[in-house]
């Protein structure tokens, strides 16, 4: 059964890709436009949230993660979790760093 899935499970129309691209370009325009506004410390958060939304779209749609087997999604989540752990540990250390 797997053989069928490995091959024909990925059929995609062109339309969804163009929609995703439109969303990505819109988000780029948005992030560039709001960069001029001073949100203070929130500026970094806004820019990173938009970047994460864009990455999510590329991962799920362009990289077909949406239609892959569950194992692929688990792999990606675990990889990202460990990156998050690295950031958390590093900053729990540096936030106590006296300048």
């Amino acid at each position: 059964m797997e053989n069928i899935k490995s091959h024909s499970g990925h059929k995609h129309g062109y339309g969804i890709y163009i929609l995703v691209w439109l969303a990505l370009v819109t988000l780029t325009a948005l992030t560039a436009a709001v960069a001029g506004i001073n949100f203070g410390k929130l500026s970094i958060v806004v820019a990173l949230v938009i970047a994460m939304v864009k990455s999510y779209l590329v991962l799920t749609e362009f990289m077909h993660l949406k239609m892959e087997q569950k194992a692929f999604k688990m792999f990606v989540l675990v990889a990202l979790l460990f990156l998050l752990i690295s950031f958390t540990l590093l900053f729990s250390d540096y936030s106590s760093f006296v300048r």
Partner: protein
Amino acid sequence: MSNNVHAEAHVHRDDIRSRMGMWLFLFSELLLFGGLFLMYSVYRYLHQQDFSIASKEMNTFFGTMNTVILLTSSLTMALSIAAMQKGKRKLSIFYQSVTILFGLWFLINKVIEWSAEFKKGNFPGSAILQSRPPGQILYFGLYYSMVGLHGLHVIVGMSVIAYMLRLTIKGIINKDDYVKLEAAGLYWHLVDIIWIFLFPLFYLIT
């Protein structure tokens, strides 16, 4: 195997594992760039003022244009696979070629951008840069190493897609066997994702 709807059921091939192998490689890329992003975030945290001053010198126009170029190249890459799935070989060849051209456009913009910086004396090791505060030297050091490493990935991605183009023309990549093209696509999209983060971190946040 008898369930396989395609004629090549006798061929020993496993597309799922091929793609999984590519994803595993992409995780090693995540570690490579992840480490650099960790370094960036700590130095930004320690030198907030200097990073803010230095990042204001970036050309946001080129940064935004290059983001749109890479996003569009990701679209054409995805379309080339969709076209191949439908058996439209010529359309797939067209989209693959366009993807390579977008990569080239991205690199040309980088050359223009970096030449301007070099003229101002903002290059690693220059006397002008060395005379600036440590945080700004770090900012430009990170900028050139991270964006430079990303640029190398663009060159590698273009070479890989060019090779896929050759395989497509020769018919080795075809409607029933296109996992190589999918793997090349995965790599190209990862390069795009890395830029999605480099763009705000170096160009937008001030």
